């Protein structure tokens, strides 16, 4: 079925995005850096290593990688509206996405507290702090989109049309939220494991081997999903069944290019902006919330 194809496609492409972002960053910093395929090499390496499980941990620690991985796959199913249109699986609801991310995050933070290390607790506390403040901004962006397009279904803002101003501002809000959720600078640094920058990395500090591979895969998938959503809002693409071959190629090229554009933007933001203090993140996400309100006002006035 097409849906399995879409899933495999996402799983295969997601680490590539991460590798591409780090390659761009390194190139701007005038370093050679790691190769683009490095995330794949990392995953293969992790699968071939054996695991060490902490003795203070309970069954929650062991179950978390599966829960997080499956919640990300369910999110992919949720947003694959093109493939599923017309079937009974067409849920595609933007709102449920917030809650499904929340499911994965809940278990990840619990497992971080489970190991009994202080880094885990700190990562868990900061992660819940950042994500709970990101939720109203996310909700306002969804609200603006739903007012503009009349529904919270993702297919509602697909389709070729002129992009309204409210969509652009909502996409900007979602961009800020994405930076927070995927632990990018200015909220968190994925490259180091120092205390000052530990939000996501601290939670998975105790994981190793295959479980770590699953969790890393899940975070790549989350990043891909969020980039896909932003790209869908700014550069909407419609799925029409009757396309001949060259048009399909063009369509696939455009489909991938826009995600690449978003990834390049994220990489540039990461290089040129400094990381914020943790307690300034509240202001940052407050700014995102205000942008969401502006997007809603634009949507209400029909701009």
């Amino acid at each position, binding site marked *: 079925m097409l849906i399995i194809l879409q899933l495999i496609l996402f799983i295969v492409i997601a680490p590539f995005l991460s590798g591409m972002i780090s390659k761009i960053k390194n190139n701007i910093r005038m370093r050679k850096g790691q190769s683009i395929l490095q995330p794949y090499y990392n995953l293969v390496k992790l*699968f071939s290593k*054996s695991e*060490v*499980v902490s*003795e*203070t941990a*309970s069954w*929650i620690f062991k179950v978390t*990688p*599966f*829960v997080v*991985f*499956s919640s990300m*796959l*369910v999110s992919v199913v949720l947003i694959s509206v093109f493939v599923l249109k017309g079937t*009974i699986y*067409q*849920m595609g*609801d933007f*709102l*449920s996405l917030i*809650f*499904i991310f*929340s*499911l994965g995050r*809940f278990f990840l933070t*619990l497992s971080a*507290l*489970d*190991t009994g*290390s*202080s880094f*885990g*607790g700190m990562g*868990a*506390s900061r992660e*819940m*702090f950042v*994500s*709970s403040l990101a*939720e*109203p901004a996310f*909700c306002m962006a*969804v*609200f603006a989109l*739903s*007012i503009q397009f009349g*529904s*919270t279904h993702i297919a*509602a803002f697909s389709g070729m049309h002129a992009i309204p101003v409210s969509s652009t501002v909502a996409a900007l809000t979602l961009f800020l939220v994405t930076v927070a959720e995927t632990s990018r600078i200015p909220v968190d640094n994925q490259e180091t494991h120092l205390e000052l920058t530990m939000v996501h990395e601290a939670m998975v*500090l*105790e994981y190793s081997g*295959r*479980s770590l591979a*699953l969790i890393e895969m899940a975070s790549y998938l989350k990043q891909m999903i969020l980039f896909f959503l932003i790209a869908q809002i700014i550069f909407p693409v419609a799925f029409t069944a009757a396309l001949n071959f060259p048009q399909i190629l063009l369509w696939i090229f455009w489909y991938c290019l826009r995600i690449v554009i978003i990834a390049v933007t994220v990489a540039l933001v990461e290089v040129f902006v400094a990381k914020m203090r*943790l*307690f300034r993140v509240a202001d940052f996400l407050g700014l995102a919330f205000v942008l969401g*309100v502006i997007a*809603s006002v634009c949507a*209400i006035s029909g701009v």
Partner: protein
Amino acid sequence: MSDLFLKQFFLFDPLSLFFLFVISVISLPSAIYSFGYLKGEYSSLKIKLAWFLLFIFVSSMVFVVSVNNVLVFLVFWEIMSLVSYFLVVFDTNHEKSIQAGMIYIIMTHIGTAFLIAAFMILYKHANSFDFGVIRSACRVMPVQTKNIVFLLLLAGFGTKAGIVPLHIWLPYAHPQAPSHISSIMSGVMIKTAIYGIIRFVIFILGINSSWWGVLILVLAVISCLVGVIYALMEHDIKRLLAYHSVENIGIILLGVGLAMVFTSLNLPYLAVFSLIAGLYHLVNHAIFKGLLFLCAGSVYKATGTRDIEKLGGLIKVMPYTAVCFLLGAMAISALPPLNGFVSEWLILQAFFLGALNSAGGLKLFLGICAAMLALTGGLAAACFVKAFGITFLALPRSNYANKAKEASLSMKAGMVFLSFLIIVFGLGAVKIIKILAQVSGSAIGFDISGMSFSFNNLTLSPAVGKDIYLSTPLLALLLIVFGVTGFIIYRLFGRGKATTYKTWDCGYYNIGARNEYTATAFSKPFRIAFSFFLLPYHKTQKIRESFYHVKSFVYETHTTSVFKRYIYQPLLALIFKTAKSMRRIQLGSIHLYLAYIFIIILLLILFIHQF
């Protein structure tokens, strides 16, 4: 004859039946739970007293939601309050119980005073105590009177429900009561106040003005945020759960307030939809909050303390309690596919759909309220990560947690039943919504025969919006399928060895319970982010041996209780000042008292021709 008697006093319309269902579905597991809970703690005479009081408590609540007569309603409302007071002060050894009971009884009587005032005005207009007669009389009541009655009813029921700023008794009373009573109080008794609001304001008074709904929405949003922010700062399990009750009452009132707004704007589908969402959250909250209180009670009974900073590692010794608490925590954080997720999703959709169908300023207001609801959902999840993680996971932090044992069979039975209900109410959302549609339709008075809320038996789909679907069985199925897939990938690819060793913690091998994260530390980012509201202050104390050598250092950090300091304490100070100034009439001198009599007699003499 008996039929006439029943018809005169009881009203069994769908709303009452729904609340009767809620009452029974929570009271039964709590009663079973109390078998095991009360066994070792009190003498057998006191246990009989507890059962007797429980019986009266539950039956008074049953009567409150099913009577047809305002006077009888008031009588049973009072009985319910009084019996719950006795249950709150049940543990007479602790002086905190007595103090909690005092605050509770005073606040609940103030609420009842407001209710009596409202009922007196209603009686004056309708000349009868019967609901039906009052309802028809309210159609012709002048708008000013209706406003006053609405405000009085809101104040009266709001005190019992725990709307901010009248919530102050909740964090005192709920922790001190025995756990099964806390679960019934938080799960059911608070909901009878919501029943009162729905019955008296929506059903009897009838809604014409939209500012009522907007006022309730504003109060509900404030309750949500205040409740969850204070809950984040608490380290006593039951106080944390009590503050979460305040927050969830706010969420229920969001649904009810939306229903009132849409009724006044004449949008029948949306009104019924929002009330469905509110009532769904009501029954969900009853279930998962009841479950959480029962689990907290079993933790308290096993370890002897309610302070989560002293617990830890309980998941290994109390597996059943841990799983039930985890399910309750997942439900209250609105994680799919459980019931909390469905009701919060419904309320958010009600906001969004309502914003699509209403005008300008109201749209933005609804959007901001929806964002605040999302914020409280996130904060609630954070709080329960803290509560579950620090209580049950990692190493035990003190001797209290070391000597814990699993709960007894009856306690386990009560908890497992409620966890099972959580899953059922999450997966069977569509069926429940069909039933709730009838309840809401009868409460608001709209005809629901033309409204459809679902696509098929598994998928929810509000008919007003385009293409909005939610199917919890499908989500659950997908989660399980993909989880299994992940497990298969895990087993297939890669080496099969997993060794158990000490926690790595960046190479620091001497980890003990002292290294773990504490609850205070977990909530510190929130304390800083919300410090404009929490107003934290700290006290330090240095003990020095000499000027240069500090022997020990004590550091305490507190958050100010804003409502207590800025609303209730000035009010109490004003009352005491007035009482003191009125003491000057009573000087203790006989001559003065006789002089009072004398003056009155003289005045009577002088003005006798007036009478």
